[in-house]
């Protein structure tokens, strides 16, 4: 009965979403507040209904109710509790329900915390959110219902895909979805603005927290996914330019562009139409990502034929929302008045450059991802656009952006002084070169380009400090005054610096790993040794072990340096009982920011085993940088100035005009 209540709750949510899609919209056109008030109340109700239904599905997974098709397909009585929970979204139906839950969660947040928004704007935002909710609730109920039942119920489940039975992947999808779906709010704001036919600087201010929150979560989700692929798949790589990865990377690039263009719009009321377009494009790319991953187009173009209803349904959603919003944009954009002017060398100019490069990058990734699919559909020819294409195009495109990043925050709005910025940055540039050279000598190898690459990463890091120092007036005023001024800087300044620094750290990690990593593939028998990154690994032998739902063979390695043992590591091959699927669990040892990565291969006939050993210098910088970017997002999000007119107006005296008459 509980399960059927969850099912009904989801159906009821669809009904409520239909009502919310229509009545408040009419109300806002006619300025009828009673009709408009339906939107916030209904949005909260919608969230509660979907949350209840999600809780029921979780319950079904936890108690292993195999009469639910979804549980039977993706769970097993022996799976530990944590993976029963993550199994809820470790499959198509459940993850779509999570998608919906996060969507209505954001709607509810707008309904609750959007009190400072003009009423009609807020109502229209919620109405657009309700449209998206309706489409996805229909999609879930009609083509991928997680509450489909089985009678009679099987006695045992088919088990969750073993590679998904991992802590990293338990957290990765919710974070990624928070990012993906978070951009739906920006999309709704854009469409609402187009519906009203009016847009100004304040709009950007209202959208900014949502963009920041979504961007931060997406950054975290992508970094988590990348780290998961690194340690779980056993190939030692951290980014594969895989279409699924690209699907999440494209909204990130577009979202980053949106974050920056919204800044110009907020401060200078320029780039308004462009920002609207970016908001629409970012969410469209999120939808496209969902479509690519969920329709099965990616694994094979022919997967369409096996489950046409699902693919066609998402394609229809895609066309309605992307096509509809872009048509609305084309129809309304010319009537919006454009904003302020600025010189090419200015903060705005730098941000335009940022946007230009980021959008071109997005387009590059989009083409690289879709071109093989398109070609296969049209001609049947299979080609693979892999890392070389992306590294060359994307890599080259990023270089000017990376060089420009430290300049941006140093330039003044409207018209800037490039020479002045250069003068302030030469210390950072010099420091970067010195440290990059030092690192080069330490690693003692690698092409000269690597030095430049690392210098670029360091330039970003030091540039962030120069920016903060300059704002504090370091060098011009006494140290104590500078410190006080530094503390008084708005949090968004720290956010900018942190995020740019994080980007630099990631670049540093990427360059270091790409050029200095070493790989050894050796066949080892117990007692043999191999060497990587100055460490000597001794293979001690294999041992059998047993987990809750898997058996594994573990190989033990002793790691020594200069003759003294410094650490030991297990690396194992697992076989999951239910699906009889082998997976590898790499053994990873961390030394500072670098890692030693040991992965087991096949057994050889003579009793040896193939062992792959990688030395990955500074690899943790890649994800460490992402952590800094996230921290930047969070710090910026906590900026007091963003809460202007927010419910808690403790910080500033409320002006009479700001009192919402409720």
């Amino acid at each position, binding site marked *: *009965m*509980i399960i*059927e209540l969850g099912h*009904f709750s989801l*159906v*009821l949510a669809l*009904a*409520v979403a*239909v*009502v919310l899609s*229509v009545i408040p919209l009419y109300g806002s056109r*006619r*300025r*009828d*507040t*009673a*009709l408009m*008030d*339906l939107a916030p*109340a*209904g949005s909260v*109700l919608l969230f509660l*209904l979907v949350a209840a239904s999600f809780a029921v599905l979780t319950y079904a997974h936890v*108690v*292993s*109710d*195999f*009469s639910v098709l979804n549980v039977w397909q993706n769970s097993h*009585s022996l799976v530990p509790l944590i993976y029963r929970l993550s199994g809820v979204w470790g499959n198509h139906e459940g993850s779509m329900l999570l998608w919906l839950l996060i969507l209505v969660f954001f709607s509810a947040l707008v309904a609750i915390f959007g009190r*400072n928004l*003009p*009423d009609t704007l807020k109502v229209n935002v919620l109405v657009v959110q309700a449209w998206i909710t309706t489409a996805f609730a229909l999609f879930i*109920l*009609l083509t991928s*219902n997680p*509450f489909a*039942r089985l*009678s*009679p*119920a*099987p*006695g045992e489940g088919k088990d969750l895909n073993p590679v998904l039975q991992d802590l990293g992947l338990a957290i990765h999808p919710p974070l990624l979805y928070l990012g993906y779906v978070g951009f739906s709010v920006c999309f709704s704001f854009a469409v609402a603005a187009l519906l009203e036919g009016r847009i*100004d*600087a*304040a709009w950007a*201010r209202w959208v900014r927290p949502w963009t920041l929150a979504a961007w931060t979560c997406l950054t975290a989700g992508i970094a988590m996914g990348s780290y998961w692929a690194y340690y779980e798949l056993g190939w030692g790589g951290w980014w594969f330019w895989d279409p699924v990865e690209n699907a999440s990377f494209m909204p990130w690039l577009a979202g980053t562009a949106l974050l920056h263009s919204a800044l110009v719009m907020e*401060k200078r*009321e320029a780039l308004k139409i462009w920002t609207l377009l970016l908001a629409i494009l970012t969410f469209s790319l999120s939808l496209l990502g969902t479509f690519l991953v969920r329709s099965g187009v990616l694994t094979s173009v022919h997967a369409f034929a096996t489950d046409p209803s699902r693919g066609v349904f998402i394609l229809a959603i895609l066309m309605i929302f992307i096509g509809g919003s872009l048509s609305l944009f084309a129809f309304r954009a010319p009537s919006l008045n454009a904003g302020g002017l600025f010189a090419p060398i200015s903060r705005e100019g730098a941000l335009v450059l940022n946007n230009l490069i980021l959008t071109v990058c997005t387009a590059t990734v989009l083409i690289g991802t879709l071109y093989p699919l398109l070609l296969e559909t049209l001609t049947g020819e299979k080609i693979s656009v892999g890392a070389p294409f992306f590294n060359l195009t994307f890599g080259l495109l990023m270089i000017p952006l990376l060089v420009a990043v430290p300049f941006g925050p140093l330039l*003044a*709005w*409207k018209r800037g002084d490039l020479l002045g910025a250069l003068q302030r940055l030469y210390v950072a540039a010099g420091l970067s070169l010195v440290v990059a050279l030092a690192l080069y000598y330490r690693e003692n190898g690698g092409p000269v380009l690597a030095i430049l690459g690392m210098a670029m990463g360091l330039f970003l890091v030091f540039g962030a400090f120069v920016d903060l120092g300059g704002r504090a*007036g370091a060098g011009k005023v006494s140290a104590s005054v500078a410190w006080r*001024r530094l503390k008084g800087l708005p949090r968004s300044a720290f956010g900018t610096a942190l995020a740019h620094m994080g980007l630099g750290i990631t670049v540093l990690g990427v360059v270091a790993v790409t050029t200095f990593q070493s790989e050894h593939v050796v066949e080892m028998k117990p007692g043999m040794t191999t060497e990587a990154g100055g460490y000597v690994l001794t293979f001690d032998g294999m041992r059998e072990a047993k987990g809750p739902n898997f058996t594994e063979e573990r190989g033990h390695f002793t790691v020594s340096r200069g003759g003294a043992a410094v650490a030991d590591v297990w690396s194992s091959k697992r076989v999951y009982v239910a699906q009889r699927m082998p997976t590898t669990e790499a053994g990873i040892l961390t030394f500072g920011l670098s890692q030693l990565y040991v992965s087991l291969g096949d057994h050889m006939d003579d009793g040896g085993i193939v062992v792959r050993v990688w030395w990955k210098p500074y690899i943790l910088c890649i994800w460490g940088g992402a952590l800094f970017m996230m921290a930047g997002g969070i710090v910026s999000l906590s900026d007091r*100035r963003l809460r*202007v*007119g927010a419910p808690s107006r403790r910080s500033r005296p409320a*002006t009479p*005009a700001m009192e*919402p*008459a409720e």
Partner: protein
Amino acid sequence: MLFWILVAVLTAVSAVVLLHPLLRGGTVLSAQRAGEAAVYRDQLQEVERDRASGLISADEAEYARAEIGRRLLAVSARGEDAAKPEGRPWRRRIAEVLVVALVPAIGLSLYLKIGSPDMPDQPLAARLAEPGNDMAILIAKVEAHLAGNPNDGKGWDLLAPIYFRTMRLDDAEAAYRNAIRLLGPSPERLSGLAETLLTDADGIVTEDARLAFEKAVALDGNNPRAKFYLALAMEQAGDRARAKVAFEELAAASPAGAPWLPLVNEHIARNGGTPVAAAEAPKAPGNPSAEDVAAAEAMSGGDRQQMIEGMVESLDARLKDDPNNFEGWTRLIRSYVVLDRREQAEEALRRGLAAFPASGKEGQQLVALGRELGLSGEGAQE
């Protein structure tokens, strides 16, 4: 009943939440531009702060202030026309009607179409505590027991034939091997293992299967099944002379009227011998004729598949005309499962149950068979 009460409550609560703003009559439209003005005022303060900290010059600050000031002015100019809310009672009545009608209508009609309101929850713990005649759970229980005590040969012995019948061939092979390892070889276990291997190899008697059959014959000389497959192995290996002898020996040793005799005779003929005259066994309805089987064996893999499908379809057609054939139904259901055409298997189960209602003995057997093969048998409840 409780379920429907809760459904009604849920629907009513949702409708009330949506009706509340309508019945309250709406709030006064809040001063539209207040939030906007606040944003610009905040920007003014920021410019002031930046100027004070020396980030921008007094000139720049003046420009910025002027620009923001223009925005503020624009807001207050627009603000005038915005604050006139209008509300018409008839519009609200229509909205109320829409809420009251749409929410239950969409909710209930869609749910009745796609939901299974009569199905109870079946948490695993409760099912394990109270298995009843839930075949899947009984198997799962034995499996769980064996996971903890992998050396309990009796458990493997029990599971092996069940796995075989439900076409879980890998599991069946492992279970037979475990049972043989723990309880020692017996003709049944050995033949079972060999048949599993042979089914897995699409009817080819592999070396492993042949060895197992040989051991079974060594343990029990009177094992026509094992002997048949051993002879078939010789035939498949191209050793027709020895195959003929072996088939002839088998035919000679079989009692008159044994059901396998026609098939054996067919093979004797194929290998160039004279069929042993035997009384025609009473032919089970729907059984493939000896010719069919012989033809199937002579064909290539693809053709054989096609022929098997053809046979299954003809059986299906025959049962359509004459549904009163219990054995035919079980064979048809199994065949569809083996061919991995589960939808048709479900369909066959439903039709079989229509001929033999689940209340009767045969009907019960059909239900059990469906369960064993993992068919949902929705027809069973109807």
